[in-house]
């Protein structure tokens, strides 16, 4: 007898799964796909997977891994079984994300302005001012349209009890959107037969949405027509493929720091074969600290000397604005629901994960007492580095981390271990439940726009909670269903 892909999937229970409900029945949005997959064998899957990997490899859709020798490229492992989100649920997520970004941008204007939220004691001053993302030099500066965080990526997971929750916000230079677009392109080529009858929401217009957002925040003194560029740290950056991909899709120059120069007039120019050309908007994919060696790190070779002078004079726009990082600090995150209530006078539509800040004595006590039930995270690292899962750690590891927490309480938070949802993912010969998260991208300019879906990342190892690509995670296409006829 031939084995089919979903054989035995529900046997271990489906307490929190995207495809199956706890009773082991298909959830409605997955029924059509599930019934198709019940007839697929491992060979059917392997054959498609091979074609997908080949397409990604030959297209050079790769990322660089920092810990390996320079220039090492890998493809981001890709899993063919998509995440599916129903139309109704999506519209709620979308409103929640718009609400969140609206509040976070108001928070940023306030923090670099009158600091009303601190004066009214909604969030402790120390938390805000000690954040590494806080840029004192931005105080008093108001970027065009009062937006600091133009491009955001919010990581969502579905918790067994709470439903969809925001795990973290990424407001500096969130990456991954090129994979969203490429994954869809590969799916359309390799598994056209799996797409649902009523179709899924298209995502191909992300680059044009991004472009109109960039132009909407141009400075008042822009040239005509205005010119935008994408500033990359260069070929060896782990997200270089994405920089190249996006600039190509938008038809704007991909530049390195040395391609730009600031004139005596404090405007920014591009060095071209015909002379200098003025630049109005810079979508920068380099960190604040490297933007301008005259202003931040003097040893930066990536930046443009004088860039911040031009920026403060309102001669050029930077996307995202320097200093936006204070609002995606993992400690500030704990206060985001309060931030939403404070500025919008609304209840948050999307919940936060319960978070304990080691800086608050009562919460530090809680972390010490319940360490085994918590995930302890450094506040200022990304990519899943330094995260300790209490339930899986050895006694020595736990003790070591707790000592670090007490030594630098500002730098640590703790959250309960979430039993977040799994999605069927191919592993050897069958589909197995693997945990996943979802990162939608939100663009804030004259209007706020959310990509329908986003990047679904999946842990490829059994039992793993870590979905980051640098730690062996993979990705999936995300389908937001169109409304059917009923």
């Amino acid at each position: 007898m031939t084995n089919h892909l979903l054989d035995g999937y529900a046997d271990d229970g489906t307490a929190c799964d995207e495809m199956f409900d706890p009773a082991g029945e298909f959830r409605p949005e997955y029924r059509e796909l599930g019934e198709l997959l019940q007839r697929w064998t491992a060979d059917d899957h392997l054959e498609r997977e091979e074609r997908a990997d080949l397409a990604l490899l030959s297209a050079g859709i790769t990322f660089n891994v920092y810990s390996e020798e320079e220039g090492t490229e890998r493809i981001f492992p890709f899993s063919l079984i998509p995440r599916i989100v129903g139309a109704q649920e999506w519209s709620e997520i979308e409103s929640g994300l718009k609400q969140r970004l609206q509040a976070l941008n108001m928070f940023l204007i306030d923090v670099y302005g009158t600091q009303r939220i601190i004066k009214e004691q909604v969030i402790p001053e120390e938390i805000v001012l000690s954040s590494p993302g806080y840029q004192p030099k931005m105080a008093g500066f108001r970027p065009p349209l009062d937006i600091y965080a133009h491009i955001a990526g919010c990581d969502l997971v579905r918790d067994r009890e709470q439903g969809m929750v925001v795990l973290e916000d990424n407001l500096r230079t969130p990456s991954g959107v090129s994979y969203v677009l490429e994954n869809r392109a590969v799916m359309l080529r390799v598994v056209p037969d799996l797409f649902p009858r009523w179709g899924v929401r298209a995502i191909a217009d992300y680059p044009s949405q991004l472009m109109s957002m960039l132009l909407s925040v141009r400075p008042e003194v822009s040239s005509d027509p205005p010119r935008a560029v994408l500033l990359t740290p260069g070929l060896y950056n782990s997200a270089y493929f994405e920089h190249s991909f996006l600039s190509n899709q938008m038809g704007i120059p991909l530049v390195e720091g040395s391609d730009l120069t600031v004139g005596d007039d404090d405007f920014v120019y591009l060095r071209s074969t015909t002379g200098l050309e003025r630049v109005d908007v810079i979508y920068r994919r380099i960190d604040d600290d490297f933007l301008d060696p005259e202003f931040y790190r003097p040893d930066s070779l990536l930046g443009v000397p004088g860039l911040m002078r031009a920026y403060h004079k309102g001669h050029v726009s930077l996307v995202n604005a320097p200093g936006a990082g204070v609002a995606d600090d993992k400690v500030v995150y704990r206060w985001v629901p309060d931030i939403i209530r404070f500025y919008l006078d609304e209840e948050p539509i999307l919940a936060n994960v319960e978070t304990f800040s080691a800086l608050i004595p009562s919460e530090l006590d809680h972390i010490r007492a319940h360490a085994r039930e918590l995930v302890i995270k450094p506040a200022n690292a990304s990519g899943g580095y330094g995260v300790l899962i209490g339930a899986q750690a050895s006694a020595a590891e736990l003790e070591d981390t707790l000592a670090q927490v007490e030594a630098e309480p500002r730098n640590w938070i703790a959250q309960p271990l979430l039993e977040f949802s799994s999605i069927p993912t191919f592993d050897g010969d069958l589909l197995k439940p693997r945990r996943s998260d979802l990162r939608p991208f939100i663009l804030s300019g004259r209007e706020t726009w959310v990509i329908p879906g986003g990047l679904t990342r999946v842990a490829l190892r059994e039992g793993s909670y870590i979905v980051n690509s640098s730690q062996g995670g993979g990705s999936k296409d995300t389908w937001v269903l169109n409304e059917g006829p009923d």
Partner: protein
Amino acid sequence: MLSRVAENLFWLGRYLERAENIARMARVEHEVSLESGQEIWHSLVSTTASNQLFWDTLADSPDLTHSEFLIYSMQNPASLRATLVRARELARGLREHISREVWEEINALYLYLALRKEYIASDIQQFCTETQRRTQTILGLYDNTVLRDEGREWFRCGMYLERADMTSRIIDAKYHILLPRGDDVGGPFDRFQWMAVLRSASAREAYWRMGNSEVDGIVVADLLIFSQEFPRSLAFCVQALQRHFQQATGETPKRRRAGAERGITLLHLDIGARDMEQLVDDGLHEFIDDFQQRLIEIDRSITDDIFRAEPNAEQSQQLATAEQG
């Protein structure tokens, strides 16, 4: 167009053309070696790279052969493999300026190289044939899928400059045959050598189609230097370089393009004013030497005056005033 991008496209054109030439020359050389029983790889090493580097590298790895050095060794920056690795690295940084088809073909060639980490002598023929075919595919795709903007003109400039250089090297490697006559000149060995030259320059069919009935060194050199119709001749390449340079620099200020423009124009006029008879009398080797020197100068002017010119403050001021007004 961004100066860095223009420079990299220029070099992408150069490297791809270089790789195609090395692969073709190596293939011919391999066949000639097999057939004649004579190991003549060393002349190819001196055509494309430095002999000194070969002997230095040999000191560290005594098993190194001329053919491995020429085709595979990453210690030789002019080896076929090293050239292609650099071309792919450039292309990776130019993806928004080349078509997806071109990129995927360059990347596929790189993956093909990556699969053959070890040098296998018996595999040379297959390897060179495949590499040459793939490189030609890339050049063809480039011509048919990439927007014909300034960047494409720089790519072509690099390609023709490199081709002119390579053809001149192929001729130079055999110039001694045209020196005052030895016994075997005009004999079977001589004809054999000139046939190899024609094949090294992809010129065999062209030579016969032009109505020649026998292989004559003077006629071969004439074709490779002066032909207006053969797309690898020095005259053809210089003329193409001139045309593409003009198109690339249509909007470049005069003072930035003047040096290279003068160099290319003079070279073009000079070739047009000569003929084969005179070259044989004056010395073919001296002519080729001078030709290569002038290509180097043209390359230097393009790099220093156009790609890497530091814009001055006065210019930026003018530009700002012009735009604000």
